[in-house]
């Protein structure tokens, strides 16, 4: 009987499934390297060294899957694939800068640890939209139900012409 390490077992199962896919004329969606990185990933951090050995194309897949927790979308894939031939450091730094600076990353903010790349993220522009400043939503709803003349009176009392 074979004794597997965690990674070796994951890779063996991947190979079995991949053979079945190939028998159907297809391939598994992610390379074995990406699959291996994903399988070993902790839920609360993304380890850069684990991804460092991947090819640029796989690195792209893994970065999206782990940092944004979703597969790469077609638009991003198309855009990044044009830059796949860049030197590794440059390509990866650009990918990571882009992901870490995105508003989408803000949602989960999974820390990227052990990164040896010179990441200099840019803060996303924060757009603040102030609606009904100072007026609670419940009051707004009451105001909107008032007849026109009472609305005018309310505005006058509030000392404002608009808002």
């Amino acid at each position, binding site marked *: 009987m074979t004794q597997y390490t*965690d990674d070796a*077992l994951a890779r063996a199962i991947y190979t079995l499934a991949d053979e*079945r*896919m190939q028998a159907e004329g297809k391939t598994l969606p992610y390379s074995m390297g990406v699959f291996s990185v994903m*399988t070993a*990933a902790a839920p609360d951090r993304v380890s850069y060294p684990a991804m460092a050995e991947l090819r640029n194309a796989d690195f792209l897949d893994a970065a999206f899957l782990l940092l944004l927790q979703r597969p790469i979308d077609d638009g991003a894939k198309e855009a990044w694939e044009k830059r796949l031939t860049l030197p590794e450091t440059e390509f990866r730094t650009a990918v990571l800068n882009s992901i870490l600076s995105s508003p989408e990353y803000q949602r989960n903010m999974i820390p990227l640890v052990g990164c*040896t790349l010179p990441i200099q993220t840019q803060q996303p522009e924060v757009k603040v939209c102030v609606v009904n400043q100072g007026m609670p939503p419940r009051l707004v709803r009451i105001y909107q139900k008032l007849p026109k003349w009472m609305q005018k009176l309310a505005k006058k009392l509030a000392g404002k012409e608009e808002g």
Partner: protein
Amino acid sequence: MRKTHIYIDLSRLCMTAFTTGIQRVAKAIVLRMLENPKLEVTLLADLPSHTGWRILPHDAFIEYYTNHTGSPYGSGKIRTLTPQEILPDAIFFDIDSAWNMPMRRGWLFPILKQRGVTIVSHLYDLIPVTHPQFFYELTVTQFLSWTSAVLQYADHIICNAEATKDALNDLCASLDMTPPPCTVVPLGADFVKKAEHPAEDTEDTEDTAPDTELLSKLEPRRYLLMVGTIEPRKNHALLLDAMEELSKLDVKVVFAGRIGWNMAEFEQRMKNHPKAGTEFFFANSPTDATISALYENALAVAFPTKNEGFGLPIVEAFQHGTPVLASDIPVLREVGGALADYFDHTSVESLVEAVRKLLSDPEAYAEKTRRLAEYQPRTWDIAAEEMGDALCRVIEEEKGLTGDISLKQMVVLTARNEDLLRSLPYWDAYLPFIEELLVVCPSRNVKALTAAWNGRIKLSFFTDEELLDGAPLPEDHTMRNFYLRCLLMEKAPLADVFVMTDDDYRPLMPLTEEIFVKESRYQAYFCYDLKEWHGTQGDYTSYDRSMFRTRDWLIGAHLPTLQYSSHQPQVIDRGIYLEMLSAYPQIRTEGLDEWSTYFNYAVAHYPQKFYARPYCAMAWPGAMTDWKLWCQPEMFYFENFYDVLYEENRVFSGLSTTFDAEKTPLENMEKMVRWTRELDRQKTQNAADALYASLHHRLYRIPPQFSLTADPAGGTAVMTVPQILYLHTGGQFRFPMNMDDTLRRSGAVLRCQLTAQDGKILTSPMELRLEDVDAALQPELILRLPEFPCSGILRLEYRADAAAEPVSAEIHSIVTA
């Protein structure tokens, strides 16, 4: 009767609006398990960090899933749980679709196994492994990941069908693995008919009225019905391929369900089908009432699926008294039995022939429907009861210790009589169950020891000379320790179970045997995870090197990696120790840590005999600055005695180092208070560090980290450092340097120093030679910090060799009290 404690992670169920498929099963089983008096169930749903769970209140969960009110999470204070807090004598049971959960089992299961928790997984099917082409890309990847974790770590698997068990055995055979023990518990199927109880098991739709327009176009018993999501695996295409032939038999076709993944082309085919709207109909997301009406009037329910986990639609059809034509695959034969008819799902002719057969003999058809009217589905009550029994059996079969464990002997290896004689009174007073102390020492020590001791505990001796019998002793301290213990196990007059100690591990209060054996389990005390062990900077001690060797050996042997060198007495089962030595004879002379080797082997092989728990010794490490604690002691029952801690200005200054029946109890209380303060200081620092890291991450999008990478532009290296550093007075700051292996060359040095803005030196420089660092670890610089609050510049420098130009970075640093 002792209940079996079960933890169930229902993260997917709780976040799924519709309780369909696996979530439906999980809900049905769990609701019944909560009523099972043999089980103590803790329900869990993961926290946003995905590193722990919130505990679901039972009443809120029951209320939500029976009466559809409130929230499964309940209201009020949130109680949380981490994987490290799961009790080792419990079962972690995965019945929900865990492969979809962000808390990956490849991460979770090793943590649970290290503690000796029993893992049981429910296996619905292995189709994403055997037929990955039928699934969404992320699902396949996640399922393959999950499967590997289950095969590696599950102690037991519950399958819903014999066919699933066979698939599991086939997979293990392909992988040349022994399959985990497996119990088959078929699912229940007594779902209430939806039209009668729309609130139960429905995908809550506001419109519960049947689709009369569709129903008016269908003549009763003249159409085939296919219920379920339209996806490649379900093989809807076969029915469309058979339309021409079915038309000749005057049989229409109805699909009821939703469009699933990767079916855009097939959707077009349905829309453009020449018989669409006349002989072929698609009820998209039908109401429950429509489905129920369709079931009751169908000639038969067709189930041409290529592969299936269980096939609940068959049972649902039976409940409506409708005959079933199903694919001739093992799992459907298992579920449908003699009540269903089967056909070859790859052949249109086979399907048409089965339909023709149904139509050709009205009497046989009537007899079939009469038998179906009496059909009694297997109930969820029975399924849940059997599943509960299976879980209890898993715990019972892996029985804990049997018979009375007599713990009368303690064993110590020592060369220092004075140390032993100072500790003996503590053992004598506080370990009343110990009757004999077997001292392993040089023969020259025996006489003096015998003369100096006249306490309750009887001393017996086994000399180093008897032990070694002329064999040479290894030079290295840790190699010697392990080697001697191996000889001891084989040669010395040891009890089957005994307490092993060092001569400076002192109990702090009267203790009972329960410290070592409790509820039929040996208590195994760990203090660290060896994978996280960094040791002393650069210049590792022989202890550190032993830890690294042990880590590598444990990983190689596929054993857990907890560090049991907790510097307190521990119980040893001689039989298990000898078994380990016989399994791994080479380890005697490899200089491993004897505690970690034994306990990790024992916990992995006898999880039900051991209870791995955090240690309960104070003064390990001797100073809080030695290393960052990986786990905090649960309580202080022992002291790892260090003379130096009793010196002036040290933590135990002013307290006595020898036993005094009157003074010692009070002084030990004082020690506990002082050591707790030490621990609290580290806790506060850890909390402040975590807050700083989180703020840095929020502000700069990366956690504070130091990295050194080869310069693509041709320079030596590029150094990246945090924007700002937050430090604490008095302690030490350790920062791991993430660096390219190419830069870890011989002669390369990392250096750091803290200075004030005006250049005044605040700390002496620290230097680390990279060739001295264990290859498996990232280099870690340690900066001893000033005792006073200040701010300054931390200068960090890397030199590839003595002659090279340094690569440096400066960080604004704040040192607070």
